[in-house]
């Protein structure tokens, strides 16, 4: 089956949430395919948390509709909560229960029989590398271990949709990669809805990414689609030897196909109208002391900043 033919696991239609004068979510339309890993990006205050709280039935919308696996968040909250797993920003582990007891409590809250959850918890603890620490209290765990335990807790009841709200915030690179590996291993078996501030994380994990700001969806697509959408201009880095950069900056800057030029030590960053202009640049540089000409790849961060601006949010 083609990816785009997959039925939608999460649908929002004109989803709106207002707090008095403030509109946190503004006519938000979204479809997330079943079994995909979907990333939601946005600066602080963009409305990500509001959206995830509505989708996990923790909050009611002011207007519009949100469906999880075909169930309406307004009237079928209990059924939705039975089929979703949630990893919230806070660890929310019970520090008075051991790691295993935390998972057992979650299983009982989901109404699972002991014979069912016992082996499931064994498997999850093993998978997360926590089997040897299952009788210890979460307070004695490192940040990475606590996070892995929270992810394990969200998976005890085998959810069909997993919400991960900034799952790797505050983790060291090793722990972050361990969580990534595990999320990747889940791909296809359930729909994963991920919010993150780490653009690399979204790029590494997500099949599709949505960028939102001021409560609105402003871009959606695969990482490549989003990068392609970022204007036709291309940036080349020309690395000179000696004083070449000083001598050629003015010459290249005067060419009509060059939109912008920036000098950084012995390098020139040249923004061209389109990549076809490169041949003119190469001709102009004939005989110049050039060490290397390389295309500067657009990053997801470039896309994010171009769409949401550089201003720091409160």
């Amino acid at each position, binding site marked *: 089956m083609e990816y785009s033919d997959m039925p939608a696991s999460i649908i929002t239609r004109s989803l709106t949430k207002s707090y008095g004068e403030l509109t946190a979510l503004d006519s938000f339309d979204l479809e997330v395919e079943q079994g995909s890993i979907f990333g939601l990006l946005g600066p602080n205050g963009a409305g990500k948390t509001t959206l995830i709280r509505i989708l*996990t039935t923790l*909050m009611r919308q002011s207007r519009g509709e949100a469906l999880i696996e075909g169930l309406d968040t307004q009237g079928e909250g209990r059924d939705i*909560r039975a089929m979703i797993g*949630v990893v*919230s920003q*806070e660890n929310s582990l019970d*520090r*008075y*229960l051991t790691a295993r007891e935390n998972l057992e409590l979650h299983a009982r*809250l989901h109404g699972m029989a002991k014979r069912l959850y016992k082996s499931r918890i064994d498997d999850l603890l093993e998978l997360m590398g926590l089997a040897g620490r299952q009788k210890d209290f979460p307070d004695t765990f490192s940040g990475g271990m606590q996070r892995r335990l929270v992810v394990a807790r969200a998976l005890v009841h085998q959810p069909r949709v997993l919400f991960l709200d900034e799952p790797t915030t505050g983790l060291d690179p090793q722990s972050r990669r361990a969580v990534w590996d595990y999320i990747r291993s889940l791909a296809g078996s359930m729909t994963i809805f991920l919010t993150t501030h780490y653009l690399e994380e979204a790029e590494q994990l997500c099949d599709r990414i949505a960028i939102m700001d001021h409560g609105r969806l402003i871009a959606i697509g695969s990482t490549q689609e989003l990068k392609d959408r970022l204007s036709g201009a291309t940036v080349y880095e020309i690395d000179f030897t000696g004083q070449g950069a000083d001598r050629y900056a003015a010459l290249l800057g005067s060419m009509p196909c060059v939109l912008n030029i920036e000098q950084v030590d012995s390098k020139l960053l040249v923004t061209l109208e389109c990549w076809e202009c490169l041949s003119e640049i190469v001709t102009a540089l004939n005989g110049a002391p050039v060490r290397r000409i390389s295309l500067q790849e657009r990053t997801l961060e470039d896309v994010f900043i171009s769409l949401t601006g550089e201003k720091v949010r409160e």
Partner: protein
Amino acid sequence: MAIWQRDMQVLRRSIFSEMVAVIAYPLTIYLAFGIGMQGYIGLVDGAPYSLFIAPGLITMTAVNAAYNESVWSLWFHRRVQFTIESYRVTPISVSEIVIAKILSGFTHGLIKGCAVGLVIFAITPFRFPVENLFQYLLFLIPGSAFFSCAGIICGTVMDKPETIGKVEAVLVMPLIFMSGLFFPLSSYPPSVVTWVRALPTTALFEGARRALVAGEMQLLPVLQVSLSALLTFVAAVLIFRYKMSE
């Protein structure tokens, strides 16, 4: 049930330290006032002072434990540990969460009240007919439920721990202490007695003492405490649901 079982699991794990702390306070009061002062006070309502205050101390322990468990547990799970949030994304309702927490507070109250009762029974001359326990429980059960619900309301609406401490000092303890725990209600000026009697805490402490010592079956005070418990239960559920929907 899962949340209540969790709370009982945690209580079992720390039962010894909990009991030492819970028993120490009323026992100190009993020794200081009941034994230390009885030579100066003599008989109160026809009973030695140490026997007069004993039922009230047992009741106070139970309701204090119910209140404290509810208020601090809910505040801690809501504001510090965020476990309430993790309960809310499971297929149980907000009402089920709050009812479980009320039940936990109530159970703490009963267990700790009984523990203090046993200790006072074991090391003091305070005695009562065993058959009076039934009448006493008619007060202790709704009384613990009332204070547990009150604790849930405070733990729901108060975000700062110092506010919880202030409410306990300014409202809860005065309500308990001024309800005839340490002195007969006849000590109040006649104009004040009517108002004091209208308080559910007065009905609870006065009624519980007379039930335990004299075995009196008092329908009106039992109804007063039970109705107060029912109203605070409804209020606690509604306030918690409202707070969670914010």
